[in-house]
Structure formats: C-alpha cells, structure tokens
C-alpha cells in the first residue's frame, strides 16, 4: 500500500473507531454537521484511492486470465493428443487381432 493510501486509510479508520466519542465532544449542531461531513469526505477519499489501486492492476488481471485460458486450452489439447495415441494403439491392436485370425484361418 502506498504512503498516500496508507495515510488516507489511517485517517478514515481513526475517525471510524472514535466516531461516537468525537460526536459526544461536539458542543453544537454545526460542529456535529462538520464532523459528519469530514467523515463522509474521509470515507470517500479512502474508497476512491483504494479503487484506483485496484483499477491500476486490472491490466495484470486481464493478462493473467488470458494466459490461464491459453494454458487451459493447451493442456486440454495435450491430453487429447495422448488420448488420440491411446486410440491409435487400440486401432493397431484391432488390426493385429484381425491379422492373427486371418493367419490362423489360412493355416
């Protein structure tokens, strides 16, 4: 977490943790209104800054998902290739069996 985001988080968390006590200390309605407005602003500032960090990483997420999908396709292709070889072996096996049967009939 960057220093700026960390500072916004600490400020917001301090106000959240102590909001009830801070409201109690306000002596006028205007002071309470100001405190609530400041808290709303602190909340929004922190949330916006946090979302910006998330958004900055979106390109990496997209790239990783693309790479993972490519890896999945490649793995499935490889598995299919192995299964195909097993199929070829089965086909050869069948051919040998038929050959043996023909040979025995000829004998």
């Amino acid at each position, binding site marked *: 977490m960057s220093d700026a985001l960390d500072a916004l988080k600490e400020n917001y968390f301090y106000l*959240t943790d102590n909001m009830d006590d801070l409201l109690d200390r306000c002596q006028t309605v205007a002071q309470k209104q100001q405190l609530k407005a400041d808290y709303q602003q602190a909340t929004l500032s922190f949330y916006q800054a946090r979302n910006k960090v998330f958004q900055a990483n979106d390109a*990496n997420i997209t790239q*990783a998902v693309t790479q993972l999908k490519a*890896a999945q396709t490649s793995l499935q292709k490889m598995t299919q290739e192995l*299964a195909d070889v*097993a199929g070829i072996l089965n086909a050869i096996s069948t051919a040998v069996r038929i050959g043996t049967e023909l040979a025995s009939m000829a004998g």
Partner: protein
Amino acid sequence: MRISDPIASRIHRRLRYGRTAALLLLFATLSACKTSTEGLAAANQLTRTSQQLSAYYSDLISQVQDTITLKQIQAEVMFESPFDTSIADQLNETRQELAQRQSLATALGNVATAYASLAGANSAADIGAAASGLAKQFEAIHKLPGGPAIPDVVGKAAELLLDQMRERKLRQSSEAISNVVKAVGTLFDAEKPLYESIDSDRIKLASEIARHLVKKENVVDLTPALAPALKPFDLTANMPVNQPPDKYRALVAEEITARSNQQISDYAATSDALSNSLMAVSEQIAKVAKRH
C-alpha cells in the same frame, strides 16, 4: 552354465537382451511415473489453492456488501442523516474489482483441472489399457521371432512411449503454469493490504455501531456476554430490561473491541497463509518443469 547349442545360445541372448530392455524400460517408466505423480500432486495442490482463493474473494465480495449495509445503519442510527449513495457507488466499484479477481481464481481452477487431467490417472489408465491390449494381441502370434518376451517388451515400450510423451508435455506446460501462478501470487501480495483493509473496515464499522447500540441506544441484550461465567452452572442472567448497569455495558463494549481486534488479526493470518500457498504451489509446479 556354458551353452554350446547355437539355437539355445540365440534364445539365451534374446532373453538377456529382453531382460536388459525390460529393466531399462522399467527404470524409464518409473522416472516418467514419478514426474506424473509429482505433476498430479502439484495439480491437486493447485486445485485446493485456487478453491481457497476463490472462496477468499467470494467472502470479500460479501464483506463489501455488508459494509454498504453497515454504512446505512451508521448513517441512520449514529448520524441520524440520510445515507450518502456516493459511498455505496464506490463500494460497488470495489465489488466489481473483486469479482474480476474471483474470475481469475476460477480460471486458475480450470487450469488446475486441465493440468490434473494431463498428469492424472484417467489418462494413464486409457494409455495403459490400450498398450496392454496391443501386447495381448502380439502374444497371440505364437510364431513371432523372439518368443513370448518380445510382446511384453513391445507392450511396455508403447506404454513407455506414451508416458514419456506425457512427461514431456507436463514439463513443457509446467513452466508456463508456474509463471502464471507466481504472477497471481505476486498480485495477491501486492493487493493484500487492500483486502485486509476491506475486512478491517467492515469489522471496525460493526464494532463502532455495536458499541454505540450498547452504550447509547441501550437496545442490546447483554446477557450472552455473561454466559461464560454462568453457563458452566446452567444459570442465565436476569438483567434489568433496557437498564443494565453501566459496568456491564462498559464490559461488553470492551469485549466488542477485543474481539474485533482479534478478528482483524485472524484475517491477516488467513491472508498470509493463502499468499504462502500460492507461492508454494508455484514452486511445486516449477519443480515438475525442471525434472529430467
């Protein structure tokens, strides 16, 4: 034993070559099997880790939803003001970001499944069955030069060929998968403080609202807080409704603070464990790639 009969000598030589070939095949097969076994173990670990990652993001998405609700309660109960919807907008954006990361975890899980299929027993069983079938057909040819040892070697050779193909494919794919898993782990580490801040935010809000409800609104039943002292004796508290003594309210407020701190600390430990799992599985897959 000295063998002078040329036919017997030829048969003996063939048997000896057959045994040597069988031994070589056995060692090679064992080596290939080890790679597949390690690959399968890595795939299973990747499956577990991707499931944990997906559950982690799913939980975070729920936490953001709870935070929106807590903000509404805070506005109405503590501030006696209408809820500022721009806060909900920001949290909904956060939720969308987390949903993208959950998609990443899902993609990781799909790769784990495909990786397990390549390394796994089902594929090996198909290949083994096909190779055995081929060997049996050769056994049926009684006049095949070399006698009965040859079909067995042919069958094993076919099986080995496929095992080695699979081993090579596992090695080829493992390096790329290891790199992507490492990238996911690096991203998780970079964003871990953000995830923890989402959890802390929810707990701190809930904690502050709960303390307010206990201390100011006086609308909380405090008797459960006394249960640890009374439950062993099958007793229940009989606290005056809506007017519990101040010392009980202070006690419960302290308990709320202590438990919220504990939950924040537990969540950080969970995040660390998941981060370690991602890095460990990346290294486990990298080892499959480097195996010769």
